[in-house]
């Protein structure tokens, strides 16, 4: 048992220690103990990081907006998340009378569970991945698909128009953006020649961000939409929908949604740094730290984007998904498929050549799609025109 986990040194050590106590006959017990210990460690570390991240995001976005951010509770406001959690725990747990109680209570769990499940295939550092699944990318897509179901559950079960509108918008957006996302993951899988995240990482002689910049940009935009973050946060556009699918939630259920939303940013950062930033293999003794630095860099960029770009309208979001990102991701997949056939070994010089070609393709394709989009909407094609209205037909 536990063969998938054998590559994890921490698991191996706990397993060996437990075997030493209970003996070979009770190997199943040692296995259970080791697995539980690992689950406890990883899940709690992830959730604690998510909690810390809520503080970091609020502080950093505050500075981006020339504010201070939460600085009252504890040193530098570090305990703000704990104070918030205590407040949420003490709040009354309100369930609307017309709500579908079971679905209503299940939705927060269904929201948080996929992000915890997706951790199983993330390589955090050398020998620190839980499972080296050979279909890791597919597993990631499958788990992230559950989140849109959770949003729909929350919106439907609240029996609130605002919640339903928010959920419908969210699901429309999530499904639309999953297509370019999956296309990019397909290109990455082609490039790495494997769907296992560990193989994807080790095959990056140079980070895939440099080899396939178009893919990285599309992935970043699509994952921002999947995370319901600011330029794409129409699901909880407070000026239109109060709080979207969260309208009827209060207390710790709301807290779980909130935590899941922020923890998902870290998860997205982990996926992004695995797929595009080369993961940990830089200097192996500090591989975990190096990985964490990359995740933090992603989170910082995400916060920067969130603090800068105002919210798109629902039709603009759909246009970005279908008229811009989708064709670009098709171009990306086609280009990488041809390149992979042309240079099947994917050694360092070959990756460099691929990268140079892809940078050219990125520039040309971006400009072409933008011009085509503008022309199809009867806008002036020249970008030098000062006031180009972002009108969408």
């Amino acid at each position, binding site marked *: 048992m536990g063969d998938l986990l054998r590559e994890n040194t921490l698991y191996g050590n706990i397993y060996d220690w437990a075997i030493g106590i209970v003996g070979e006959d009770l190997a199943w017990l040692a296995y259970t103990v080791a697995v539980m210990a690992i689950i406890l460690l990883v899940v709690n570390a992830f959730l604690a990081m998510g909690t810390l991240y809520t503080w970091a995001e609020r502080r950093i976005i*505050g*500075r*981006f907006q*020339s*504010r201070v951010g939460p600085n009252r509770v504890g040193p530098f406001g570090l305990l703000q998340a704990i104070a918030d959690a205590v407040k949420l725990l003490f709040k009354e747990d309100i369930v609307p009378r017309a709500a579908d109680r079971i679905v209503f209570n299940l939705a927060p769990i269904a929201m948080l569970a996929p992000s915890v499940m997706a951790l199983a295939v993330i390589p955090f550092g050398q020998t620190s991945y839980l499972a080296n699944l050979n279909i890791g990318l597919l597993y990631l897509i499958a788990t992230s698909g559950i989140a849109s179901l959770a949003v729909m559950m929350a919106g439907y079960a609240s029996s609130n128009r605002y919640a339903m509108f928010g959920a419908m918008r969210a699901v429309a957006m999530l499904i639309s953006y999953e297509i370019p996302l999956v296309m990019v993951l397909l290109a990455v899988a082609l490039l790495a020649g494997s769907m296992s995240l560990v193989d994807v990482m080790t095959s990056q002689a140079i980070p895939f961000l440099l080899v396939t910049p178009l893919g990285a940009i599309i992935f970043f935009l699509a994952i921002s939409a999947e995370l319901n973050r600011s330029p794409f946060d129409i699901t909880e556009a407070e000026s239109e929908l109060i709080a979207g699918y969260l309208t009827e939630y209060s207390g710790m259920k709301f807290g779980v949604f909130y935590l899941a939303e922020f923890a998902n940013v870290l998860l997205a950062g982990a996926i992004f740094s695995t797929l595009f930033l080369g993961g940990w293999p830089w200097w192996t003794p500090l591989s975990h730290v190096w990985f964490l630095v990359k995740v933090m860099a992603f989170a910082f960029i995400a916060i920067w984007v969130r603090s*800068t*770009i105002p919210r798109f309208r629902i039709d603009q979001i759909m246009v970005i998904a279908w008229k811009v990102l989708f064709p670009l991701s098709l171009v990306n997949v086609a280009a990488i498929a041809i390149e992979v056939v042309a240079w099947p070994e994917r050694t360092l010089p070959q990756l460099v050549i691929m990268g140079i070609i892809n940078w050219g393709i990125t520039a040309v394709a971006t400009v072409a799609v933008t011009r085509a989009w503008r022309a199809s909407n009867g806008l002036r094609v020249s*970008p030098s025109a000062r006031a180009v209205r972002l009108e969408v037909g």
Partner: protein
Amino acid sequence: MYGSGMMKGFGVTIRNLFRKPVTVQYPEEKVRQSSRFRGQEFSWFEDRCTGCASCAKYCPLGIIRIVTSPSDRHKQDGADFNIDVFDIDQARCMYCGLCVEACPYDALHMGTNFEGAQLRRQDLVITVDVLRKRAKHPSTWYRPQLERQDFDPYKQEADMQTVAREPYYWHPKRPAMLPESARKEATADGEYK
């Protein structure tokens, strides 16, 4: 160039990141108000007050109550009045400052404080004892004589001579208020102690 507008936006936010936040952390640091700030507490100089109750008459809300009684002091010049009650009900005060404008003897001034929250409504009534004891940091609002002296209410405390419009030669009721030369003149006939 494509995306230059977006780059400009990102530049704005990243510049904010390395700038000091504009937020003033209130209980620790306070925004310095203008010296003409019409603040909460009133600065009242009892030695200047004759108990004429002009402030009470001019108050649009009628929230100032003055009760006076004749005293034994300065009987030669007509009796001096004790100010027994001088209640200002801050709960209804709108800080228009008409009482200050009305005061003929520059005895009442707006204050410079803005932290006067109380737990009970009756605590918002300023009584005469409170007015007597309070540190005098009068606002320079409607008091050009204070501005002429570069009076800074946030650093200095005012006494009854500082706040005067002019030396009260015309009203030599309280010799202590007079300048040194005038005081000698006024006390020359031995009437004033």
